[in-house]
């Protein structure tokens, strides 16, 4: 009963968030001073191709038309929404014309999602596990040590970790590949191992920084839950330490962590973006960055819309899954 209402309001909020987000994203670049046509012309001309004035004009007209930047802003806006949600087509990329944005984004999205998903889950599990130990077994030397490590690791910005990893494992001790190259075709073992091999460092830089937060928050949660009456009573019941830690402390402490995970997705995505740029990882981050540098409206719209939809959707999914973790919401 409650759940139906919860789902409905959550989905409405989801749609509104995406709509507002995408609207903002549509208008911001339209007010950008850089003009994709000029950008393209500039690129052609700096390469030294000489053109007469009329020739430049002719080329400019051709480009404007080809990029579909005609019509009023409102027409472009409605056209964009129509395309995005009815035909799910973001049009051609401007800087990669006529390659469709869908193709470019489609190629990058799995990489970003994969990186984000795996590193987020690893960081979350690792951080919560250590945090649980640190909170429940706060007298142990090992759990205290891990907590201190987390405190020092937590504030290190993503890019610094990324750079340190590059220096350590690519330069000084070249264990991981310098060159992002994937071998084999998608289902093969070769493909999978090469994806893992190539993704270890970017993922590690996100995990290293990400898990610190989970350690600290989980530690706080589990140490306060350890003081709850039901944990005390579980001890009186003679339940084993492992059982108390998992079924009593963890099961309760994990709930807020799930909620926070949903909220943090956006922030983790930001980190992944910088990591991608630094590691030359073929995800949305680098594409977005290139699109901004080349004033590629369509591609920008594509990557950012997809980012917003992806982040909002993962948030929605976590929120909708939440009741399965928490019986109090499920059954009320």
């Amino acid at each position, binding site marked *: 009963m409650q759940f139906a209402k919860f789902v409905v309001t959550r989905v409405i909020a989801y749609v509104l968030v995406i709509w507002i987000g995408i609207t903002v994203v549509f208008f911001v670049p339209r007010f950008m001073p850089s003009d994709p046509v000029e950008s393209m012309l500039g690129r052609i001309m700096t390469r030294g191709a000489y053109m007469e004035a009329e020739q430049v004009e002719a080329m400019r007209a051709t480009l404007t038309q080809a990029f579909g930047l005609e019509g009023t802003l409102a027409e472009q806006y409605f056209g964009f929404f129509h395309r995005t949600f009815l035909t799910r087509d973001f049009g051609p990329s401007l800087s990669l014309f006529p390659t469709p944005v869908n193709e470019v984004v489609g190629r990058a999205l799995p990489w970003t999602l994969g990186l984000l998903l795996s590193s987020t889950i690893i960081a979350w599990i690792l951080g919560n596990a250590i945090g649980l130990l640190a909170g429940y077994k706060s007298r142990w030397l090992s759990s205290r040590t891990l907590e201190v490590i987390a405190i*020092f690791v937590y504030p290190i*910005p993503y890019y*610094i970790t990324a750079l340190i990893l590059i*220096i350590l494992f690519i330069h000084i001790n070249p264990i991981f590949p310098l060159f992002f190259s994937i071998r084999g075709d998608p289902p093969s073992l070769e493909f999978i191992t090469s994806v893992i091999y190539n993704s270890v460092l970017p993922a590690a830089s996100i995990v290293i920084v990400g898990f610190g937060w989970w350690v600290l928050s989980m530690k706080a949660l589990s140490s306060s839950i350890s003081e709850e009456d039901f944990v005390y009573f579980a001890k009186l019941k003679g339940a084993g330490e492992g059982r108390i830690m998992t079924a009593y402390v963890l099961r309760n402490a994990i709930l807020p962590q799930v909620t926070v995970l949903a909220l943090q997705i*956006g922030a983790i*995505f930001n980190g992944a973006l910088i990591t991608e740029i*630094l590691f030359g990882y073929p995800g949305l981050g680098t594409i977005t960055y290139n699109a901004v*540098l080349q*004033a590629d409206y369509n591609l920008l719209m594509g990557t950012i819309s997809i980012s917003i939809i992806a982040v*909002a959707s993962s948030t929605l999914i976590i929120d909708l899954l939440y009741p399965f973790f928490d019986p109090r919401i499920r059954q009320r």
Partner: protein
Amino acid sequence: MRKGSPRLTIGLIMLAAFIILGVILPFFSPEDPRSWIRHPRNLQPSAEHLLGTTNLGQDTFWLLSYATQNSLFIGLFVAFFATLIGVFAGLGAGFLGGIPDRVITLLADVFIVVPSLPILILMSSLLQGRASLVLISIILILFNWPWPARQMRSIALSMRERQFVNTARFSGSSTIQILAEEIVPHIFSWAMANFVNTVLVAIATESGLAVIGLSSLEEATLGTTIYWALQHQALLGRRWWWIGSPVVAIILLFIALFLISTGISNLSAERRGHGDA
């Protein structure tokens, strides 16, 4: 729990060092450390140049001091306004309810869900590279107020039900007086912790933006210092004092702020009486 105060003390001492470095020392700087080729390039640290010089002939120590100033400015500016706006928006949403609540909550959700970095990249570009520190800060405020707002809203909702608010009301206190005397003392330490955390986030985001070359690169911030060092291959060139000093400064600053943040929340937990059996 008792470790709360040493944490806070260490954090405050560290922060004080940064404030001396970033707020007081720049006034004594013998030069504008941003200008190039003032000194021989790539000197090792010495009595004259405490942290050596950069490949651009700048004194790294004074550069660091300027950078700390700007980074602290960004952090404090963003944290102050984000916390302020967040607290008021959240309290407003929680106490007013109805339409204002829905609007504020929705806006907060939008800014939490929409990934900020693409928008920041876009805005930096929108501002024609004229992304001054103030403008970057304003954008950061935009993306950082929803966190305190969300939290404040739920605090406000629970506060609304707290009996001592009713006691105050029946003692003739007006809404403003209730806000000031009953609510604010309860959220103060929380808001402080949030403030400190936001300082951290703001500095990190600005420097992240700087590292990919999208901040205000003529200004010296910890991030742009790293950017220039990277551009000049200080990393592979092992000019550690150049690349290292801003990185170490960021980490230490973060640890200082983190210690203060957790110290404050521990301390307030202790004050609330969670300290005893």
